[in-house]
């Protein structure tokens, strides 16, 4: 009897100790993840709510926390149609449309085109690939500085062609308020298209060679091969590339600053520039916050369906 009792007495604390330890072990993964998750909740989602809150106040230079309704949004809505003279919000969202559309389209087209060319068993691919890709490593500020110089009518391309004898050549988009946004497209495409090329190239390399061979034996021309078989197979890459580009386009801020300093009369502004100017320079914090919320909603509309399908497709 006594021996049993002692062993029992001996056992109990040990078991409880192991259970505490094992419970700690079980909780350890969550404890490790918790700080990152908490940071995300507070500094991303909490701050987003805070910005939304601010957009419904009458904050000017300093944040005010008295809700005054949707005046900021009403002003933005009014400005949306203010075309004569165009309001800076009207200019910003029009520019966003032009820039976003052309930037994404040209990057996708150029990226795919270069990837297909590079996939034709090219000698020197190892040299060409980094040449196409390196702009991605540069900061938008550096890209802006380089292109500002290159596109400057008095110093860059125009001047060079004049010296070479083509004196009628005229290219002053960077100083022209109607065309300055297209120079942002040029510089943006220059920077990102190489990366999109790399994405497509990886996709092309992942395609099963047997499918291609079978199609060639069936007499498909190279053009048909790409149009009917390869490009449809690349659909997931198109989607990823689109997400990357859309996200880069809406975030673009630095490039406009460095390349155009906002353009003549703010004619190169994107919504991100509008937000920064109104919040930090024009002391219209509520309007700035409202524009940030609109930017966020645009991103949500694009990204959330994508993330939802990505995370749902691979249940575990």
């Amino acid at each position, binding site marked *: 009897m006594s021996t049993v009792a002692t062993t029992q007495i001996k056992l109990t604390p040990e078991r409880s100790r192991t259970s505490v330890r094992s419970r700690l072990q079980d909780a*350890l*993964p*969550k404890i*490790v*993840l918790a700080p*990152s*998750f908490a940071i*995300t909740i507070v500094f*991303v*989602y909490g*701050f*987003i709510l*805070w*910005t939304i809150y*601010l957009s419904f106040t009458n904050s000017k230079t300093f*944040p005010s926390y008295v809700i005054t309704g949707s005046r900021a949004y009403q002003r933005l809505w009014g400005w949306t149609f203010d075309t004569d003279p165009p309001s800076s919000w009207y200019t910003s969202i029009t520019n966003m449309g032009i820039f976003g559309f052309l930037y994404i389209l040209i990057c996708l087209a150029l990226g795919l085109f270069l990837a297909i*060319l*590079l996939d034709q068993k*090219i000698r020197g691919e190892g040299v*060409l690939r*980094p040449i*196409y890709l*390196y*702009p991605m*490593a*540069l*900061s*938008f*500020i*550096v890209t802006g*500085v*380089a*292109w500002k110089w*290159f596109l400057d009518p008095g*110093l860059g*391309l125009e*001047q*060079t062609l004049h*010296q070479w004898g083509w004196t009628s050549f005229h290219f002053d988009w960077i100083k022209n308020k109607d065309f300055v946004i297209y120079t942002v497209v040029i510089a943006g495409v*220059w920077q990102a298209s190489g990366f999109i090329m*790399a*994405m497509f190239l*990886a996709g092309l390399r992942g395609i099963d060679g047997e499918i291609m061979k079978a199609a060639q034996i069936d007499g498909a021309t190279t053009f048909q091969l790409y149009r009917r078989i390869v490009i449809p197979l690349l659909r997931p*890459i198109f989607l*990823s590339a689109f997400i*990357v580009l859309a*996200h880069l386009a*809406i975030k673009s801020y630095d490039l406009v*600053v*460095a390349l155009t300093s906002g353009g003549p009369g703010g004619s190169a502004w994107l919504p*991100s520039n509008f937000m*920064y100017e109104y919040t930090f320079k024009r002391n219209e914090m509520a309007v700035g*916050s409202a524009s*940030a919320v609109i*930017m*966020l909603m645009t991103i949500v509309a694009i990204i959330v369906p994508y*993330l939802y399908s990505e*995370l749902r497709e691979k*249940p*575990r």
Partner: protein
Amino acid sequence: MSTVATPARQASGGINTKLVNRIVIYGLLALFALFYLMPLFVMLVTSFKTMDEIQNGNMLALPKAPTFDPWLKAWGETCVGLTCAGIKGYFWNSIKMVVPAVLISTMLGALNGYVLTKWRFRGATLVFGLMLFACFIPFQSVLLPMATILGSVGRFGVTLQNSVGTSFGLGNSTVNLVFVHVVYGIGFTTLFFRNYYEAFPTELIKAAQVDGASFFQIFRRIMLPNSMPIFVVTVIYQFTNIWNDFLFASAYAGTGDAMPMTVALNNVVNTSTGVVEYNVNMAAAMIAALPTLIVYVVAGRYFVRGLMAGAVKG
């Protein structure tokens, strides 16, 4: 007869078109290579020219008398705002900000990815989804609250400084930027590591658990030694992003001595006082671009390969 002749004719025609095709392909590739190289080339040659040569010469011409002066001037003498001590201080500011931010966010990403794939719990996908979405938000939507918080922390730091004698780094712009970059970087680093570890054989972890290895032992002995490729990707990605950041830098350290390189460069280039020294501007831009360029040239191939293998899922 004709059936025999046709393939033969086709074959010879095929060789001709093939040759033309090859010429067109190489021509196009070379043309695009020019397009991508041109701005860098112009920037580089301009940075070695004298102002005189820039104003009277051709943008594309090689410098007649290459001079290293613009680089020295950009590094040590040029004016950023009102301080004329070159960009070297701002270069170090960026280094001081980038190194801790990259290391911390990468380590956290590795741990998070490990937990989210090998120690799955209920709701893990939701947690990951919330962290992943954070990668995509336009930072404008958190810019202002963060500025407010950093302002309060700064004031608290001053109070501490006055009462205790040290602010513990609170309110220091570099510390602030490290914090901001870690906070908004862990989404991406977690994504990278999660996707990479997803493919890592879980049996190995199970076996190690049976042998009594603890959570951290498994991480250190099994996961880390096998994570080299994704570490390369994450470090390069974070390094480029943080080094190149302008929005946070200009919002939270836009003035004063803690300014990172990108903000300083923008100030140098947009200074309107005196004669604009294009050669110095270009040299400053090159200095700002060099660290990330070198990283891409040295490790770019691993970056693309790793990124395609795991991070960006097609």
